[in-house]
């Protein structure tokens, strides 16, 4: 009952809020119809004069750099603090893949670096960039030396999780999980939702005029606006098996956003979300080709809602799995889940609520959640009640229940 009221209120608030400053009274057509002349292809394939206009190699590069980094974080034998920090910043040719070394891009440069959230929030941006560097350093300085120590409350080391062995810090946290799941928010979600899908970037400079007149970027087949939209797409699908038709392998193509779109899709309560996300990317891009920026922005709104929801669902899912593990006295399994949950909670501060244009949870709120998870001996101390409270707090701000997110 409570849920129904809440969501009714949410819808009422939504309509009310969204109309409050709408003084021109324009009614916008809700979607594409034949009269809008938007030609939507079946796959994410767009051409100009027979040449593909789709380009997001920079995003593919960053995903691959992230993969190398998180893999190397578990390389106890050869990784050093410097080698890992070099991978994070792409300095001193840190990768085995020479193409990555040759790239001017890095993971670090685009962490917490969106136009909408961080262009006048540089200190927060720098702090978050450094936060990941600190997690990476701690992995080498705290966890590597304890490789053959048995972890106990307050002592870093290894802990069994079924057939696997996990390596945790003194509070039970796997730093590599905190980095991986944290980057989904700080890099992929922030760049896609708060940079490339925002009008500050899509419409920057003469982008609208150029796109209206099919003026392409020098030496490229695409307009700047088309490219910006593609770059958002690339953070979800940049390493897909089929870059134009990524959903057949959704969830299997990276360890970041793609993977968890796939995981949420696999929860029957959310089945259909992968198609909805892909369709919104595709329709938005087709709308740019058709120079229909209203439909484009409607798709951006949908993407902000759905991709944020992926983060929220997985945060609650892992908190619930962690709770179940603690109750079953499977601490290794519980800590692994809570480590993933920790990273998704961190990522909440980069989500984008289309109704407020703010994250679903502010940085301060996220810090409060993290403080609850890490106080005292951290995961060794955290209670099922705390995990339930956190789960409800998070799910209530979205439009799903703990039960929907917590089960598959």
């Amino acid at each position, binding site marked *: 009952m409570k849920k129904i009221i809440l969501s009714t209120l949410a819808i009422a608030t*939504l309509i009310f809020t969204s109309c409050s400053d709408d003084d*021109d009274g324009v009614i916008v057509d809700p979607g594409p119809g034949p009269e809008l002349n938007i030609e939507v292809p079946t796959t994410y394939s767009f051409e100009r004069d027979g040449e593909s206009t789709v380009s997001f190699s920079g995003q593919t590069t960053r995903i691959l750099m992230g993969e190398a980094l998180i893999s190397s974080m578990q390389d106890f034998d050869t990784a050093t603090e410097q080698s890992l920090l070099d991978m994070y910043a792409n300095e001193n040719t840190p990768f085995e893949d020479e193409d990555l070394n040759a790239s001017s891009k890095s993971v670090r*440069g685009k962490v917490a670096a969106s136009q909408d959230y961080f262009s006048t929030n*540089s200190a927060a941006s*720098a702090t978050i960039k450094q936060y990941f560097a600190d997690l990476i350093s701690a992995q080498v300085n705290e966890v590597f030396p304890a490789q053959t120590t048995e972890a106990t409350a307050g002592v870093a080391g290894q802990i069994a999780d079924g057939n696997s062995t996990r390596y945790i810090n003194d509070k039970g946290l796997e730093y590599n999980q905190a980095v991986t799941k944290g980057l989904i928010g700080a890099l992929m979600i922030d760049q896609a939702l708060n940079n490339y899908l925002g009008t500050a970037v899509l419409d920057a400079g003469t982008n609208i005029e150029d796109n209206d007149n099919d003026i392409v970027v020098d030496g490229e087949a695409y307009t700047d606006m088309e490219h910006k939209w593609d770059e958002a797409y690339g953070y979800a699908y940049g390493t897909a098996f089929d870059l134009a038709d990524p959903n057949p392998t959704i969830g299997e193509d990276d360890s970041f956003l793609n993977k968890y779109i796939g995981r949420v899709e696999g929860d029957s309560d959310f089945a259909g979300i992968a198609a909805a996300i892909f369709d919104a990317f595709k329709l938005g891009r087709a709308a740019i080709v058709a120079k229909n920026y209203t439909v484009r922005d409607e798709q951006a*709104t949908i993407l902000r809602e759905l991709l944020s929801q992926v983060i929220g669902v997985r945060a609650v899912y892992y908190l619930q799995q962690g709770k179940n593990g603690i109750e079953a006295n499977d601490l290794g399994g519980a800590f692994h889940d809570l480590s993933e949950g920790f990273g998704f909670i961190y990522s909440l501060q980069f989500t984008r609520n289309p109704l407020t244009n703010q994250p679903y949870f502010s940085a301060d709120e996220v810090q409060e959640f993290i403080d609850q998870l890490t106080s005292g001996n951290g995961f060794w101390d955290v209670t099922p009640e705390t995990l339930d409270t956190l789960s409800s707090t998070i799910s209530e701000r979205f*439009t799903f229940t703990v039960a929907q997110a917590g089960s598959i």
Partner: protein
Amino acid sequence: MRKIFGFLMIFILFVYACSSDDSTPDTSGPLPPANSTFERGPLLENIADNIIIPGYIDFLSKVEALEDATTAFVTTTDDLTAIRAAWLEAYTTWQRVSLFENGPAETVGLRLNVNIFPANVTTIEDNITIGSYDLGLSSNRSAKGFPTIDYLLYGIGVDDTAILAIYNGSEGDAYKQYLQDIVADMQSLTITVLDEWQGGFRDTFVDNDGSSATASVDRLVNDYIFYYERHLRAGKMGIPGGIFSGTVEPNTIEALYAGDLSKQLFLEGLDAVQDFFNGRAYNGNALGVSLSSYLDDLNVLKEGADLSTIIDNQFNTARQAVQGLGSFEQELQNNPPTAFLNAYDEVQRIVPLLKVDMVSALSISIDFSDADGD
């Protein structure tokens, strides 16, 4: 599936009910001009006659004083004080004219020829060692101008004694020659620019008073915003602060070798940008026709306040924030350099005011694209 459908329904409601202006926090941009009677000619006159030309005259006099000081230095080579003072005086005055990369200065690429920093020490030393160089080559632009003089007066030795020893040593003549050649290069470029302004270009500039992509005001405003965004904001603060790379880069500050100057050079540049906006005469304090008065003439408002006042206030806020800092060298030792970055944010806040609000009110198209892509 049902849930997804529900979400989509909500969105359909949302988009159906309202316009789709959902992604910019500020939805109340400047109002379009009701009935513009503004004449662009007087604006251009004030800028040319009272700001740009007096600015270049003053700058040339400072470059010539630097040349005199250089001649004196290479003759006696026993004291760096006078030439350093002349260098700083000219470098400071440069901050007053750097923003006018329009017309003659744009043609010769004045800014790129006198102030690419950090200087390329390898190229400088190679040039000096080989003893033959073409300062007109673009590959030599980072081996001349103020940053190279900074290196030659402060950076070639660990202290003054060591620096003077180099000028008095076996390679001394080569260093002296290079120093003189660089100063002469700056002088000759500046004379070229000033001569053109005092020759035919002034009238060409003022007469081109229409409103099109090639009209003087449109070009000037683009060059002005480009300078603000790329050179003042990014070059002097953003890049050293790690805004773009994610890593603090203290070795990219202006006047790296002299030290403790980059903040004051920044502030001088900020003053110049604000004075230009307000149409303040280069000599004296008289306010003339300006971008600010242009906006007032069109009665451009943003959230109920004059856009010109909002911009001017933000310049003041940015100045106070930067003035409140220690030297850039000190600030950049912090990780992250929070105070420096907070001040940068105030500098950044001017960008959309100029680049979005002002230009849309004046119907000027931005002709440069954001470099900060993927």
